């Protein structure tokens, strides 16, 4: 296992990405990504559409193997770990996919109960209690027996979040949480993310290009540039807007500065 660079160890690194190159076949999406997500961060992966934000997320949650480079969780190299260990690590992730990705053949309650039933030895009554609690946390109490197609997009997102939280994850991943939501729902989701970070003590990684969200919740970030096909900035978005690369500043000010 390769050693994690020293300066990143000091910052209480939770996720460390080193020299990551992402590619589909020969077509490189992004290269040489190196950044650190500290424990308790709300880390924003930002950049213009199509720059590879979601692809980076897929690398972080173990859905796509990197073409080159490493992803460390604490000091375990995810892509070099044994399959069993990878599975074990994945259970500490909660993922909210862009479309919610609720299992359409299951009710909301079953969606949340499924991971619980798979990984915890719980009685049906206890599972039912946990499910109700998780749904209540996202403001969907009483919707247990609804199918995903019967509720609105915003509710699907929140139900997806409830499922992502089912196993009390260490790290929550959000792929474009505010996509397709009206400003108020989007704001509520941001508040929820902040609350969850504070109360669960989880690390949060958010893929977004929603400026309001970026400044409202992010305290660390990486900016992917589609032109140079690499990251051009990392750090607190509030600092980047002051003293960042011009491209990043343009992005963060919507090109108005």
């Amino acid at each position: 296992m390769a050693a994690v660079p020293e300066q990143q160890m000091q910052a209480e690194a939770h996720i460390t990405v080193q020299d990551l190159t992402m590619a589909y076949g020969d077509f490189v999406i992004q290269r040489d990504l190196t950044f650190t997500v500290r424990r308790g961060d709300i880390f924003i992966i930002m950049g213009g559409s199509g720059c590879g934000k979601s692809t980076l997320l897929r690398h972080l949650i173990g859905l796509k193997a990197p073409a080159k480079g490493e992803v460390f969780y604490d000091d375990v190299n995810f892509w070099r770990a044994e399959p069993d260990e990878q599975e074990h690590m994945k259970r500490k992730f909660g993922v909210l996919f862009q479309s919610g990705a609720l299992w359409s053949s299951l009710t909301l309650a079953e969606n949340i109960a499924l991971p619980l039933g798979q990984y915890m030895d719980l009685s049906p009554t206890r599972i039912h209690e946990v499910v109700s609690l998780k749904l209540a946390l996202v403001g969907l109490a009483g919707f247990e027996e609804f199918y995903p197609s019967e509720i609105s997009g915003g509710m699907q997102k929140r139900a997806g979040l409830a499922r992502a939280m089912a196993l009390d994850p260490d790290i929550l991943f959000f792929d474009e949480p505010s996509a397709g939501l009206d400003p108020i729902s989007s704001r509520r989701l941001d508040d929820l993310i902040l609350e969850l970070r504070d109360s669960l003590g989880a690390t949060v990684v958010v893929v977004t290009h929603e400026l309001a969200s970026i400044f409202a919740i992010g305290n660390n970030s990486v900016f992917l540039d589609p032109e140079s096909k690499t990251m051009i900035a990392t750090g607190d978005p509030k600092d980047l807007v002051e003293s960042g690369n011009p491209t990043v500043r343009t992005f963060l000010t919507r090109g108005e500065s």
Partner: protein
Amino acid sequence: MAEAAVESVTTDNNTHGQRYELSFERPASDTLLVRLAGSWRLENKLPPITEVQQQLESGAAVAQVRLDTTQLSAWDTGLLTFLAGLYTLCQERGIVLDKAGLPEGVRKLIDLAFAVPPQKDTGRRGELPPVLARIGDATLKLLHRAPEMIGFIGEVTLSLGRLFRGKAQYRRSDLMLIIQEVGPQALPIVSLISFLVGMIVAYMGAVQLAQFGAQIYIADLVGIGVVREMGALMTGIIIAGRTGAAFAAQLGTMQVNEEIDAFKALGISPMDFLVLPRILALIIMMPLLVLYADIVGVLAGMFVAGTTFDIGVFEYYQQTARALDLRHFAVGISKGTVYGILIAIAGCLRGMQCGRSAQAVGQATTSAVVTSIVFIVIAASLLTIIFQKLGI
């Protein structure tokens, strides 16, 4: 310069009587002033950009192009495409294009269009590769698919292994639901097709057998034909179109919705959870469906014999019972089971391979049915030969 004069004017009428005007001036020897006036809409049959090009090429070299749109009355995409062409023309020749003379909206849109330079190395540019290269690509793709299929069959085997060790993660209620969809709900269509096929076999045979007064052997012909071959084959083809397609569409849509990713991200194997119950359902239901199709087919023969040749029900039954024994049923049902496994594998494989678009789901479905039917026909031929050689 003193002789700054209008050099050319182009106009055209549109149906509303409004027209566009394009004229050029040379306020200085290295400056071209392009004057755009009137209505610049797509329906005005706007001039090609070559008119400006001619102006740039004639006379002294131009270093700057300025625009005057004070007389412009209306514009739409037509003006924008013209200006975009002008912009590209100027960029190629290193000429400065002064956009100050443009209405603000137009200037912003032009800036917008050129804000992001075209992506160069996307690998999607250029013409179609030569024929040989395309044949090569197609062949390589085909070669890549074979290992994918073998890999998938391997994963199915591992998943079955986990099932027998009681470790597979799937929900019994899902299995029951799929069994219901695959089996009982297919009975009407299986009944119809089997009955008609039984009738066809009976009529075809009857015409020949009647020539030498051996109509009673319709029972043998229909019995053996349907039970050994046709029952399983027709059920296989119905189930390929009905269930194989449904499997591919269900899994494909789940792929599009990221539902399969959600399983993987949670460390739940989609093979166990989605593919295994589907394969089990077909393994369980296919033999039953084939048996049912056999019975319906024989009844169809009995119907034809009774109505057309006055062969009594009891007589027909006796003759059928003499002709058939368990062996024939075993052959037909084992073939049907093999078809079922092949349909389930083809349907699930195509569904899991599905891309992330609505069109991909359609392709996956088509491909599932085509693959299933090809598999069925190949398996039917092989099994028939094998059973003949074995003398069963």
